[in-house]
């Protein structure tokens, strides 16, 4: 899994509580082959999990992605899957993380729901 900037994520990053930011960032890009092999269709969700956490996102086809790689716009949903180890330089691994991906019928949590477990 890699996380990174997108135009829509950047345009919404000063209005993170808005529906537009949710639509722009709570998504997971997959290659066309992976999208098909997981039996996905537009609007379906995927569950991503690894040793650090799990998160449900809306799946999106991305012709520019190689197989076995997912891309998530940087932000609070992607960071559920990021660990705290910084390798002595202060910066966590926001890219190059191993995650398991599966189709799911579970809903994507909105931004308030995402943080409700943290005391928000």
């Amino acid at each position, binding site marked *: 899994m890699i996380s990174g*900037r997108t135009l829509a994520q*950047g*345009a919404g990053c000063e209005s993170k509580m*808005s529906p537009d930011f949710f639509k722009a960032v709570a998504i997971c890009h997959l290659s066309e082959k992976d999208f098909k092999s997981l039996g996905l269709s537009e609007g379906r969700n995927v569950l991503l999990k690894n040793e650090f956490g799990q998160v449900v996102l809306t799946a999106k086809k991305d012709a520019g992605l190689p197989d076995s790689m997912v891309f998530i716009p940087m932000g609070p949903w992607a960071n559920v899957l990021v660990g705290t180890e910084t390798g002595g*330089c202060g910066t966590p691994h926001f*890219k190059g993380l191993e995650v398991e991906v599966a189709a799911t019928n579970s809903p994507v949590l909105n931004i308030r729901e995402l943080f409700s477990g943290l005391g928000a």
Partner: protein
Amino acid sequence: MSEAIMIKDAVCSFCGCLCDDINVEVEDGKIQRVRHACRLGSSKIMGHARIESPMIRKNGVLVAVSFQEAYDKAAKILLAAAKPLLYGWASTSCEAAKKGILLAEEVGGVLDSTATVCHGPSVIGIEEKGLPGATLGQVKNRADTIVFWGCNPAEAHPRHSLRYSSNSCGKFTQEGREGRKIIVVDVRETRTSKNADKFIRISPGSDYEVISALRMLVAGKGDSVLDEVGGVLKADLADIAATLKAAKFGAVFFGLGITHSRGRYKNIDNALSLVAELNSHSKFVIMPMRGHYNVGGIGQVLAWSSGYPMSVDFTRGGPYFNPGETSACDLLARRDVDAALIIAADAVSNFPRATAKALAGIPVIQIDPYENPTTLLSDVVIPCAIAGVEVEGTAYRMDGLALRLRKMVDSSFPSDEDILMGILESVHKQRQMTANEGA
């Protein structure tokens, strides 16, 4: 209704490009239209619904209070803390950063910037090796070969290519895009790679190996390079090495694709060595694609104030810097700070989940114009005027050039600088009261 005025050549305070050709139409004290800015800059300058009042959390609910009450509560939290973290600083002015450093020294805290989760590894790599740099103007006017490595300016710095790099027309580069060779190195196709003459797709986490192979090829030691490195054929790497050596003026721009991946600051260290070695054959420069508009500025102000560019610990009586120990994510993961002031950044969104969870367990003061996930966990919330839109100040572009931010409209909110001074004055007042009570 007052007559509309046009503010010309204002600086956009969104990303590290600091585009200084923005025209803004103001009528009745409100921004009506923004010209020349990209989608990112326009959204920032036009703005949206703000936090309306200072707030303090009482019985689990944020309730409106006066600014002075918020300053006093913030000061009380910072004074009660053994080791407060003062984090953010990338989206405010250098003048506010100066006040923040004063406050960190006064309360004995750790001051860290968003660089720590962004180009922090670049800062460390540059400290190790030095930076063969240039201004963006030099790149525009002279560069005939440009490499974008692990960055996607088409989405993160949308006007970079047209104003400063691949598609810009300069004094000695009048043909613009046609006269340049553009190489993009990334793990995936991006909008930026679609504009490249040569796109090299590398395997994730193989930046260090690929840079090392290029160094061998540039040095004429290709015999030692494997047939395939990081998913790239040796022939393709040899082709790139030859293109780099043949450049009259080359520039490498790199992004979080290289700082956030395996190798982190060692990737930057290696890239700086490659560029230093290319200078034996040609003129070559390298530059990090800084994200927040003044993340360079907080680094500059901290460096000339304390000697260090980020992650500075003031709890020992003098500045101390040791990334991995004094950086925000590490401090929070170790539960080594007991309060936090978050300014001009949204730490809760941008930190790993476990790190954000650590913030939920300590008192948090937020200074920001807008509600965001950090607000949800904050105990004190202080709304501010927006630097670069409602307040003037100084900011550093990604190439280290200082530019003056303009004030476009008035604001009823205090500036970050005013708020920090309000908290600092309350710190002094509360300290004096405690001293008087003890006398």
